[in-house]
């Protein structure tokens, strides 16, 4: 693995940044649990970023870079599944947004209210369900993504995809990349806050206790990012499980660390940190959580006990 970005990758991210700058990203001016960036999602799709992994010479790594970058925004869009998972399962480019569920098609799923496709991990295979919007019940939740569940499991348009291993591997990469972006954005927000906020006559960030804890948060952010990118590059089951599991195992601690130094302000909807906290909490519980990824990483590395 080359740890520097190629010219192409730099160019892709530069273009994405320009596109983001040209868009009216929903600003957290009013207290809301989340902002769905429908227009940004369309623009990102139209510009071809969600299909980057289908291009010759590119793959999951470029898709993970894009996912990580877009996860830093205050608004949420469905990018990870469309760009990282769909190409590996030969799902046609137009079939998105994509929602994901583990085990049971009737479970609540992120992005289901917007989704055209629901992919259900059934262990030995994957069920692809074409979503009828009238069959989706939105769920009102704090968890920062639009959640929904299918009203009925009868008469679904569906087909089976046999390659559950690839699906689960890419889901883990997608989860790890998105979590890394959310962590990075949250840390950046807090660093700005502790530089500006004064207490006891000096900036909060001048207190060593705060510096140390945020430095540890930076270790987590960097580690999560590199593990996610490594997993996307290697496309190995063990790396993917390790990247997702590491990110999930650190989410509880890093979210507490980040909120701690924003005081009561950081607990309100008027301060955007909660947007990433919610998302991270959702991601922490996906695919059975950190312990399941750790177990999978062990099996992928050393085989079953």
């Amino acid at each position, binding site marked *: 693995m080359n740890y520097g970005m190629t010219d192409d990758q730099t160019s892709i991210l530069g273009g994405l940044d320009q596109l983001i700058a040209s868009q009216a990203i929903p600003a957290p001016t009013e*207290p809301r649990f989340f902002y769905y960036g429908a227009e940004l999602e369309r623009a990102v799709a139209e510009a071809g970023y969600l299909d980057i992994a289908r291009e010759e010479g590119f793959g999951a790594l470029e898709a993970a870079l894009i996912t990580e970058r877009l996860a830093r925004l205050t608004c949420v869009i469905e990018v990870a599944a469309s760009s990282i998972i769909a190409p590996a399962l030969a799902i046609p480019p137009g079939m998105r947004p994509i929602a994901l*569920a583990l085990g049971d098609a009737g*479970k*609540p*799923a992120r992005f289901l209210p917007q989704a055209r496709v629901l992919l259900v991990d059934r262990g030995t295979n994957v069920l692809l369900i074409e979503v009828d919007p009238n069959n989706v019940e939105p*769920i*009102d*939740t*704090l*968890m920062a993504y639009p*959640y929904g569940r299918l009203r009925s499991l009868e008469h679904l348009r569906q087909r089976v995809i046999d390659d559950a291993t690839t699906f689960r591997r890419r889901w883990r990469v997608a989860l790890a990349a998105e979590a890394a972006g959310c962590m990075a954005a949250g840390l950046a927000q807090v660093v700005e806050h502790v530089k500006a906020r*004064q*207490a*006891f006559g000096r900036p909060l960030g001048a*207190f*060593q*206790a*705060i510096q140390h804890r945020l430095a540890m948060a930076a270790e987590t952010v960097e580690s999560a990012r590199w593990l996610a990118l490594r997993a996307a590059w290697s496309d190995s089951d063990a790396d993917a499980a390790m990247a997702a599991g590491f990110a999930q195992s650190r989410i*509880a601690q890093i*979210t*507490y660390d980040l*909120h*701690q130094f924003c*005081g*009561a302000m*950081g*607990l*309100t*909807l*008027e301060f955007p940190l*909660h947007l990433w*906290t*919610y998302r991270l*909490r*959702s991601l*922490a*519980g*996906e695919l059975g*959580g950190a*312990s399941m990824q*750790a177990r999978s990483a062990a099996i992928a590395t050393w085989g079953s006990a």
Partner: protein
Amino acid sequence: MTSAIDSLREQARAWLRANVPSSGPTSEDGPALRSFALAWQKRQAGGGWAGISWPKEFGGRGASVLEQIVWFEEYARAGAPSPLDASFVGLNHAGPTLIACGTSEQKAFHLSKILNGEVLWCQGFSEPGAGSDLAAVKARGRVEGNHLVVDGQKIWTSYADIADYQELLVRTDPTAARSRALTWIICPMYLPGITVRPIKTMAGPFKYCEVFYEGVRIPLSNIVGGLHNGWPTAMSTLAFERGTASLALLLGLLRTVEQLLARCPDSRAAMRTRLAELRAEGASVRAMAYRFALDAAASVPDSSGSIVRLCFAEFGQRVTAAAVDFFGIDAPEVLADHGLGYAYLDAFSETIAGGTAEIQRNIIAERVLGLPKA
């Protein structure tokens, strides 16, 4: 345990079984929450259980610390409403402060109203520029005749939108050293010039408020502890917050751990391990809390309460996080309005409100361990 304690436990258990409301307030916001908190307080007063720690001469039960522990154990077992509700400030801050520092008129007027569920209190300490650094309070009060005229702003005031009175800390002597410049005063929330703006939190309800004061005229007779003497008065209030008031919450968390363990199958080895560790942690926090409560019984709570406060806060965060992981992020128990997801997010405030974890650690390092000041 003595037979008197056993008997108290039986009485408490029987009363709680018959009186604990079967459901919570119809809404987490506004009037419904106020009605619920006052009704529950009234019911406890009617049963002789209000102000369990307050001295009998002020209408309380005058219970010993051991008796209070028994009450809180039964309270938690019965699943009674959170003691950290809208009555909390009146019962655990304002009331005890008035008992310690108030005039006989102030005691006579306010204490029975608090105990009997007639009024709610809120706290007006924190400001946009004065949270942990409480001595940096900027809201001003100037004496004009028989009144203190207050201008300024407070923030993070829980339940200001439904409270009748506020324990308000304002700067009254701009020339004095910070800690000798403040005054603690009873502020009726209905006075002209007060504007309350609820703030929506990331856990859902409008738990906090911002309060603005514009030429608010408060009678000087409402000052508690003397003009410019608000700092020691406020510190006596905060000492209660770092002490025993949260026992019922702690016991509720321990019950949550037991319930999760009972439901956790053998196949979830990692979760069972995590819950078992939480069970051990909870037992240690409970032992510390009990010992601290019993040690502090004969004196004002001291700085070692910070250890209990910190351990309890972090334990609460770990338990609520484990509960979310136990059910899974997509479980109805978690996603539901005011479900476990709410409890988890609400627990973020545990290490911030009432003295941040960093302030508690400073206190432990300097006053418990005797380390030099940074």
